[in-house]
């Protein structure tokens, strides 16, 4: 087996190892991407509110 093949094969446990690491990657990436998107969306929403005129609701 070539080096890369052996690496992916992980001594027969490839499916287990790579699905774990894959899931970890997904979880970690999602947790960075989603908050950033949320922040941009919040800023956009606030900008729209600004453009429409002041509204001073005090409930959080």
């Amino acid at each position: 087996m070539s080096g890369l093949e052996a690496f992916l094969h992980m001594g027969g446990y490839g499916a287990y190892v790579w699905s774990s690491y894959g899931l970890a990657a997904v979880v970690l990436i999602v947790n960075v991407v989603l908050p950033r998107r949320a922040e941009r969306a919040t800023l956009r929403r606030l900008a729209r509110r600004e453009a429409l005129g002041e509204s001073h609701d005090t409930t959080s």
Partner: protein
Amino acid sequence: MNFAFLHKYAALMHCYRLSRALTPWLAGASVLLFAWGLVGGLLLAPADYQQGDSFRIMYVHVPAAWMSMFVYMAMAVAGGVALIWKLKIAEIVSRACAPLGASFTFLALVTGSIWGKPMWGTWWVWDARLTSELILLFLYLGVIALHGALDDRRAGARAGAVLALIGVVNIPIIHYSVEWWSTLHQGSTVTKFAKPSIHIDMLIPLLVMISAFQCYFAWTLLVRMRSEILAYDRNASWVRELSREHGA
């Protein structure tokens, strides 16, 4: 010692600015640490004598499990600070910790389950540690539910803080009970991840990965906090100016 200099960091605008300043560095540090840890864990560490290469799942499972508990503690401490000193920034930290902690717990559970299949032959065992993690996930989900159930963000954060603190007292009790329960219902045989003395070549990547996860946590926590800060201070002039700059 005069702690007055800390007071300005209670101001949300300063925290927002601090977050913006720090996150690029934390991002870079996380990526580097992950790279180092992955190379060490996936390539350099020798295969385990008993488990072969499947033990490499440890390098994501153990840090995730560690973080799941660390973040709960952080959430509870921030919650306690929020309740006692009524600091908005503490409420924000507490709120932001919850989904992150739940993600780590979920990751720990699934990777633990995946790791268990080659080790024990089944996808799930009622092992003390996995069961405790599962209960921890429910505790997190409860806090998240409470955060969302109240219309007032501040009250929601404080209610979640009370629940988190009740949970913090309960966690050692739950841990001990489940530990005790699992010895009742299965033999003391192979139900735990074996903890032999770990070879230094296997240990170093693990420590690096844990640091990577910690750094990552700091990074994403600060990012998450920014949306919360904007929501909390939405009527403040600095927020209005910021949103105007950002454009519609």
